[in-house]
């Protein structure tokens, strides 16, 4: 029973960008893990037991340690397995990466979904407001392959799972070309570069299935 081995389990959900980014980090570090799919919106007893505070995925279980909150988990992974660093070394660059990651989840996500599904101020205004926020990221990535420089890092994982491989699919369902190449050449190039990274490709929800599911989510959200 007391076998000295690293056991890593991840409770996730296939369309959750929060859980996908944890998978990306584990793959980048070459950490083998067991994946347990939550059949959301139904929450398993295991999920409720492991994350009683938030009752959400992702949850990472590393031997006897239980962790939740995707940013917290990414930093934990980075500090536990030191190969292929996720966060930059320099304190200022780290602060910058953390700042933009927070911005993606706390500003871009709320602006980039519900206000487009239920545009109180009109769809054009909602699109412009989302683009204004995305423009901040355009400035950050211009001149670089990735936010992390030559290789993917913390902000690439957070923004990558949230924007091109989650929100963009919702935008496609709604017929919105949010990140057009002419307005966002830097981000457009970044997305193409992301698609070339094998680890990223392995962590993207399959497009057709995703679009099908996203359409259902949008319908449900419209009537909520």
């Amino acid at each position, binding site marked *: 029973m007391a076998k000295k081995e690293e056991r890593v389990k991840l409770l996730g959900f296939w369309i959750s960008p929060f859980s996908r980014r944890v998978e990306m980090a584990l793959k980048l570090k070459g950490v083998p893990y067991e994946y347990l799919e939550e059949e959301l919106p139904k929450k398993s007893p295991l999920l409720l037991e492991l994350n009683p*505070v938030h009752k959400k995925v992702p949850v990472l279980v590393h031997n006897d340690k239980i962790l939740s909150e995707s940013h917290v988990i990414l930093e*934990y992974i980075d500090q*536990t397995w030191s190969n292929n660093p996720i966060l930059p070394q320099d*304190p200022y660059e780290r602060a910058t990466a953390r*700042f933009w990651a*927070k911005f993606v989840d706390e500003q871009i996500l709320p602006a980039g979904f519900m206000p487009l599904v239920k545009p109180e101020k009109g769809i054009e205004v909602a699109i412009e407001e989302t683009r204004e926020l995305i423009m901040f990221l355009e400035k950050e990535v211009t001149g670089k392959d990735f936010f992390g420089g030559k290789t993917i890092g913390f902000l690439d994982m957070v923004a990558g799972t949230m924007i091109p491989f989650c929100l963009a699919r919702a935008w496609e369902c709604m017929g919105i070309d949010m990140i057009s190449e002419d307005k966002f050449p830097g981000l457009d190039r970044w997305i193409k570069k992301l698609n070339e990274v094998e680890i990223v490709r392995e962590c993207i929800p399959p497009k057709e299935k995703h679009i099908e599911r996203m359409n259902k989510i949008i319908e449900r959200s419209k009537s909520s």
Partner: protein
Amino acid sequence: MASDEVKVIGAWASPFVMRPRIALNLKSVPYEFLQETFGAKSELLLKSNPVHKKIPVLIHADKPVCESNIIVEYVDETWSASGPSMLPSTPYDRAIARFWAAYIDEKWFPSLKSILKAEGEEEKKAVLAQVEEGNALLEKAFNDCSKGKAFFNGEHIGYLDIAFGCFLAWLRGTALAGGHKLIDEVKTPSLSKWADRFCNDPAVKPVMPETATLAEFAKKIFAKPPA
């Protein structure tokens, strides 16, 4: 060549602004405190934090850092040699500290704010119950994280102490909580003792507003217009 000067843009009453100030004090880093005028935003603030236009902002060698908890980590990492680490040493304990700091900002603080907005006894009761539920979780978190020592971070004040302790001046103004004692010796005994230790720490005392001054200020900013 950019100087190594440190500036903090903030306001004396803001708990979020207290966070970087406590962190800088803990590392004995001198800084210039640039007070924003209540109700107006300076050019420097708008230039340094164009995304959120909010305080606090730390400016170090002319480079701005925004978001209070991110600033605290930046201070800890930049002046790592100048004082004890503000985060625990193991990745797991660090993750737990970050988890609870995020919980405080995303769940606990919004429920605290809604006490002020709550109208009627029923709503007030419900909101208070939420805050108390959060306090109970944080009481347990304190016992788990401190492992019998004085602070969440162990022997020395750290990231999570700062993240939560910055609200103590506001919490102690019981008038602000409608006469309810939110950190209570009976319900949250460990936190109650921790609160005293935190508020009396030399790194905290100079930047923690006096309860009376804060109460006056709160009256002004939360004053309901005449019916």
